[in-house]
C-alpha cells in the first residue's frame, strides 16, 4: 500500500523556494530518513504531508488530501514536530485524559505502560519536566496511538546521547512493525543509520538522492587509498575524495550510469578492482551525503549527469 504519493510538490515563501517540484512515493512498512542541510525544505515537506501548510502540486497521504482533511488524516498519522511542543501548563494526567478523549485509536493502558518505565510522575506539569522527559512523554503518547504513519522532525534535538539512543531503540522495538511507516528528518544521521530502510537527501527544495539501504550498500563503496595509488584510483572517477591519516578516502558509485562506467577504460568497476587499491567498505550516510551535496554544488554538469 502506498502511504505517500506526491508529484511536483511546490511551495514558496515569498521569493524563497522551499519545495521545488518534489516527487515522493513511499510504501508501507518503510523507515525513511530525510536528510538535508538547514533550510533545504525538509520541514516544509513534512508540514505539507501533515496538512500544516498549503502547497502546489499533487499530494496524497493514505489516500487523503492533507490540507483539506487534516483532522481525518490525524487518526492514522502521528507526529512529533519538535521537542518542545507539549503545552507547558498541562499535567501529564491532563494530556493522557485529553488524548484518550479525542483520539479513537489511543490506547491509554499502553501509554501508561511506557510512562511506568520512566521517572515521569502523573501529577507533574510539562514545564516541570526536563527536556528528555518531555520527549519521553511525547513518545509515550505517540507510540500508544495505533497510527499507520509516524512523522518525526528532529525529535531528539538537544537531547543527550543516552536519551537519543533510548528514543530510537524504543521506537524500533516497541512500535515499528511492517504495517507502519516512519519518516525521520534529522541532522544526526549516524544515530539512525542502522534503523533506516530508505534514505532521501533533500537540497534546495529538491530530492537529490533517494535509495533503499540495500541499494545503497550494494552500490556505493568507499576505498582507503594509499598516496602511491591515488592517481590510479582517481582515474576511476570517484564521486568524492577526502583526506584521512595515511592516505585519501575515495567514494565510488558502482552502478552510476552503467554504460558510462564501462566506457571509462573498458573494464567494469567492481569490488575486486577497488579492493586492489586499498581497504574497501560501505560508506556512511553522512559521508555519502557530503559527497552528493558537494558534487551537486560544484557544478551543474556533474549534477546533471547524476
Amino acid at each position: 500500500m502506498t502511504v505517500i504519493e506526491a508529484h511536483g510538490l511546490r511551495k514558496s515563501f515569498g521569493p524563497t523556494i522551499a519545495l521545488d517540484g518534489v516527487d515522493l512515493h513511499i510504501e508501507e512498512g518503510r523507515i525513511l530518513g530525510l536528510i538535508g542541510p538547514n533550510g533545504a525544505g525538509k520541514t516544509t515537506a513534512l508540514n505539507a504531508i501533515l496538512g500544516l501548510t498549503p502547497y502546489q502540486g499533487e499530494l496524497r497521504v493514505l489516500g487523503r488530501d492533507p490540507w483539506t482533511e487534516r483532522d481525518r488524516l490525524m487518526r492514522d498519522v502521528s507526529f512529533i514536530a519538535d521537542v518542545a511542543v507539549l503545552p507547558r501548563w498541562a499535567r501529564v494526567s491532563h494530556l493522557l485524559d485529553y488524548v484518550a478523549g479525542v483520539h479513537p485509536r489511543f490506547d491509554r493502558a499502553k501509554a501508561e505502560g511506557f510512562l511506568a518505565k520512566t521517572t515521569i510522575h502523573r501529577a507533574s506539569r510539562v514545564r516541570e519536566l526536563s527536556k528528555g522527559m518531555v520527549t519521553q512523554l511525547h513518545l509515550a503518547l505517540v507510540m500508544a496511538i495505533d497510527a499507520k504513519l509516524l512523522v518525526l522532525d528532529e525529535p531528539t534535538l538537544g537531547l543527550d546521547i543516552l536519551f537519543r539512543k533510548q528514543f530510537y531503540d524504543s521506537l524500533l522495538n516497541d512500535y515499528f512493525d511492517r504495517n507502519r511507516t516512519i519518516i525521520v528528518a534529522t541532522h544526526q544521521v549516524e544515530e539512525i543509520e542502522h534503523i533506516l530502510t530508505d534514505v532521501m537527501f533533500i537540497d534546495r527544495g529538491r530530492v537529490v538522492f533517494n535509495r533503499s539501504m540495500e541499494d545503497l550498500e550494494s552500490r556505493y563503496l568507499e576505498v582507503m587509498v594509499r598516496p602511491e595509488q591515488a592517481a590510479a584510483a582517481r582515474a576511476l572517477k570517484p564521486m568524492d575524495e577526502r583526506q584521512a591519516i595515511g592516505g585519501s578516502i575515495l567514494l565510488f558509485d558502482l552502478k552510476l550510469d552503467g554504460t558510462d562506467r564501462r566506457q571509462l577504460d573498458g573494464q567494469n568497476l567492481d569490488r575486486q578492482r577497488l579492493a586492489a587499491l586499498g581497504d574497501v567498505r560501505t560508506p556512511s550516510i553522512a559521508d555519502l551525503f557530503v559527497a552528493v551535496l558537494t558534487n551537486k554544488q560544484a557544478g551543474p554538469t556533474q549534477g546533471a549527469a547524476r
Partner: protein
Amino acid sequence: MNTQSNAMHESPLDSQPIAPAALSETRPMYWSTMYWSIRRELSENRSIYVAPLAVAVVALFGFSLSSIAGIWEQQLSLNPAHPQAPYEMSAGLMMLTGIVVSVFYCLDALHGERRDRSILFWKSLPVSDATTVLAKASIPLIILPLLTVAITIAMQWLMLLLSSAVVLVSGLSIATLWTKLSFLRMSWLLLYHVLTAHALWPAPVYCWLLLVSGWPRRATFLWAALPLLAIAGVEQIAFHTWHFATLVGSRLIGAAPAVSTSPDMFPTDPMTHIAPADFLSTPGLWIGLALAAAFLAAAVRLRRYQGPI
C-alpha cells in the same frame, strides 16, 4: 478511484468490521472531542473560573462586613424600600468580571497556542480547526455566562443567609426580607439577562477578538482595538458623531435594547418587565450574530494556515 482500489486491496477481514464501527462512532466522537476541547480551555485558562470565584469571595467578604456593622447601625442592614440593592450590585460586579475575563480570554485564545508552539501538538490530533475554534468561542458565549450565573446565585444565597442571620440577631422578623426578595424570580431574571445581554448581544465583539487573536505575532490587543478606533476616529472627523464607538461599547457592556422594558440596568424587577420577544425581534441582534458567525468562520480558516510563531 485510487483510494477505493487501495481499500479493496486491504485484507477484507480487517476493513469490514472497522467500517460500520467508524460510522457509528462519528457522532459521539464529535461530542467527546468537543467536550475535551472545552476541558482543555478550562485547564489552560484557569482564570475563567478562578477570577469570578475570587470576585465572589471578595464581594461576600465586603457584604458580611457591612452586614455585621448593620447589627449596630440599623439603617445599614436593610434598605426596606430597595432590599435587593446589594444583590444587584454584586450581580453587576460578577457580570463586569465576566466581561473582563472574556475580553482577556478572547485576545489570547488563538494566540497562546501559537506562542508556546503547542499548536503543533494540538494539530497532531484528530481535532478539526472548526471544533477547536467553536470550543474556544463557547467559553465567552456559553461557559462563562453560565458560570457567572451559577456563581452569582450561590453568592446571593450566601448573602441572603448572612442577612437573615443579621436580621435575626437584631431581633427583627426575617419574613419581610424573604417576602421582599423573590429569590427564585431573581435567579431566573439573572439567567435571562446574562444569556441575552452578556452572551448573545456582545457575541460579535467576542468573536472579533477571537479572530484577531489568531492573526498577529504579538500585541493582539492593539490589532483588535486599532481598526475599531480608526473607524470611530474617521467617523468623528467626517461626521462629528460617535455612533460606531457607542455601538461597540454598548455591545461590550451588555446594554442590549429591548431585553426588558425596565429602566434599570439589572432587570431584577418583576417578570412582566422582561421582553424576550422584543429582544429577539431586534434586527441588531441578528446582524450581530451574523457578524459573529462570519468572524468565527474566518477564524477557523485562519487557524488552518497558522503555525507556531
